[in-house]
């Protein structure tokens, strides 16, 4: 199983000063910053997925790239822009979520292929249109007319995409996009894509589905799948089901979720092989909007808040695993929550995190370098490093999966 990481310009600055919470004044975004594959001993992914909508911007606004970064992306190509080692693969797609509200995709097959060709992608997904909805009982013809229309559009565009790839003599490996709303409709999409000549097919729109439904679809697809066809699951990581996925022809997946959980999830922020821990929230008095407002209004004393913030960081940094240092840290955290007027207390979760102290035994380079800073929920530099660590954990899980060949003997 190959894991792709979707690019969203997620980098860390190697010169960031954690003690003073400052960037080096001369730092240049992206160029001086580092991707996960540059800071960890082993890249935590086999490939990266880059959406045209993120680079170019789309209907719903600007992309993640500044105009000069975008120009440089086209000039240098995906490999040099991301400073990728040879063994990391590149996959392009349209970023169909960006235009999910449109009647028809506002992008052309040629425009998309231009993007893949000019930037030198290894592989590219045909233009698709996401179907938002799942109904296992709807048939191919008796379903929401919008779903039926979107699936037909996706298949038509895939046909045109394959045709243009061969007419242009493109070096990009074509990946057919399959959309559907049920096992039957997904299977039918895969069947038709195979007829068009696709041997690699990306299944879209499955992110909201329950694992059980995903498996249903994969079983149904498996009935018609030719042995040569490889499947990619767009936006999905279900580690528990991964071995079954592999048996059913899935050779690659992509997902940002382990990365984003580092700073988006309520509690599952720092992952380990068998569970996830809450990161310890020490918001910056300066950076926190609510707190800043409360200070401006005179409700919270800025001095008290700054003092509590410093005290908390000091206590965490001198944490040595002893019960005494743990108590000091938890007391400081409790005090900061009070000053902060936090609506919710995380103290019980923090106690678990400190008791297990999982960063101490993590062999990844980031945990070894930054220690307890890795579990402090504060500012993008710590949070993204924790996200990178989570990717490493996922990569290890994936690499430990049995290969499909090895599994076959049990089937």
């Amino acid at each position, binding site marked *: 199983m190959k894991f792709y990481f979707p690019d969203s310009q997620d980098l860390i600055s190697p*010169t960031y000063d954690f003690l*003073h919470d400052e960037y080096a*004044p*001369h730092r*240049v975004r992206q*160029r001086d910053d580092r991707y996960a594959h540059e800071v960890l001993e082993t890249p935590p992914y086999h490939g990266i997925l880059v959406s045209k909508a993120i680079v170019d911007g789309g209907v719903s606004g600007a992309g993640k790239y500044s105009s*000069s970064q975008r120009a*440089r992306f086209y000039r240098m190509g995906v490999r040099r822009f991301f400073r990728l080692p040879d063994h990391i693969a590149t996959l392009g797609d349209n970023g169909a979520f960006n235009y999910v509200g449109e009647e028809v995709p506002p992008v052309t097959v040629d425009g998309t292929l231009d993007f893949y060709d000019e930037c030198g992608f290894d592989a590219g997904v045909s233009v698709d249109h996401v179907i938002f909805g799942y109904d296992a009982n709807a048939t191919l013809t008796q379903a929401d007319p919008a779903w039926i229309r979107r699936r037909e559009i996706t298949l038509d565009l895939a046909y045109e995409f394959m045709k243009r790839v061969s007419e242009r003599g493109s070096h990009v490996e074509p990946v057919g996009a399959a959309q559907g709303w049920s096992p039957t409709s997904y299977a039918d999409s895969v069947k038709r894509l195979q007829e068009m000549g696709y041997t690699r097919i990306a299944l879209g729109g499955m992110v909201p589905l329950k694992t059980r439904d995903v498996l249903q679809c994969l079983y149904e697809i498996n009935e018609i799948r030719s042995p040569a066809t490889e499947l990619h699951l767009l936006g999905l990581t279900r580690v528990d089901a991964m071995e079954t996925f592999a048996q059913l022809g899935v050779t690659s997946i992509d997902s940002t979720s382990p990365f984003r959980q580092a700073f988006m999830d309520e509690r599952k922020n720092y992952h380990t092989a068998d569970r996830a821990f809450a990161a310890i929230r020490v918001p910056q008095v300066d950076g926190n909007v609510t707190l800043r407002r409360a*200070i*401006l209004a005179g409700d919270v004393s800025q001095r008290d808040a700054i003092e509590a913030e410093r005290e908390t960081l000091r206590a965490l940094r001198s944490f040595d695993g002893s019960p005494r240092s743990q108590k000091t840290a938890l007391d400081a955290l409790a005090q900061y929550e009070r000053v902060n007027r936090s609506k919710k207390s995380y103290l019980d979760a923090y106690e678990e995190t400190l008791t297990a102290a999982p960063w101490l035994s993590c062999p990844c380079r980031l945990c070894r370098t930054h220690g307890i800073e890795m579990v402090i929920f504060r500012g993008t530099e710590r949070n993204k490093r924790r996200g990178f660590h989570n990717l490493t954990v996922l990569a290890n899980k994936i690499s430990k999966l049995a290969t499909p060949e090895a599994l076959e003997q049990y089937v």
Partner: protein
Amino acid sequence: MSNTEFFSLPAVRVRQGSQYIYAFGVDGKQIPRFAAVSRVHRKDQQLAGYQRPEVQSHIRAIRRYLETDGAILPNAIVIAFDDRVRFEPVDQPQNGVDYSTIGRLLIPVDDSLPDDEKPAWIVDGQQRSAAIRDAEIEAFPVAAVGFIAKDEAEQRSQFILVNNTKPLPKGLIHELLPSTSVKLPTTYARRRLPASVLNLLNFGAGGGRGPFTGCISTPTMASGYIRDNSVLKMIENSLYEGALYQYRHADDGTGDIPSILLHLNHFWGAVQRVFPEAWSLPPTKSRLTHGAGIQALGYVMDSLTEGVPAADLSDLAIEETLRNLRDECAWMDGSWHFADDQVRRWNNIQNTPNDVRLLTSHLLNLVRHASPVR
């Protein structure tokens, strides 16, 4: 008033019209004991206080500077006192300088007083005083200037007056930057390298002349006709996103200046030779020396020379490439044909992001078709 002690600080009283100001030195670590910092907030619909909250990033920058050896803060902190503060002269006015009197300033200090009952307010220097308070240093005496204000309204108007001084013109700052040595605020620190490059282009490095020598208009080079900001933007763009990045040292933000100059002079020398007249005229007569032209061609430079070291630039036949697109350029007269339905008079190109983008992609397109086969 049981806890009151008095700071007795040597001071000079200076008469200004009918009022007095007091210049004195005081350990910055002691200031919070008698002076409060008010902040803008609403109290029962009434605006109370008159200052912004502390800006931590700013304070941190000053604080780290203070912790270095040889730090000085020459600017005085401005303090408004109420009438609990007294001045005692120890000396009679000297002949001829009757406006200055030497004496002692007596400031009551009571650590039990809440902030809003302290006898002094910091009118200017809030961030500096917070930085001294926070810095890991024993003491830091600073120069201060105080006055005795009637009420808060007077304090507030002083605050606005003191904080309303006009900042130095940007161009002058850019000229001063290369010869600074202290830790600078981020925006200036980032500009130091581009500004140094610009100065060397303009004033000639080691006596050598380049296409920009004497052409860039700055506060001290009044005869220049290319706006300093146009060139600065082009250099910055290329240093951070383009061809010049290869000469930049990511660890400390400095750069290999000789190579940067070589690179720029090579490309813009070719521009000057291909468009000699357009290069010699001011932006009103030529769009080449205009912000739009300089920036657009800067992108062309990045596109043609990215990743190529200065020593190998001559292999690229840049001059030949530029010569091939001479007929399509309308720097001084005629029109640009961006597309069939998009024709623009030469002087209808403005220095706006849109026009720069339009011109850039047009030129890049032409270059793509005009480049001699390498």
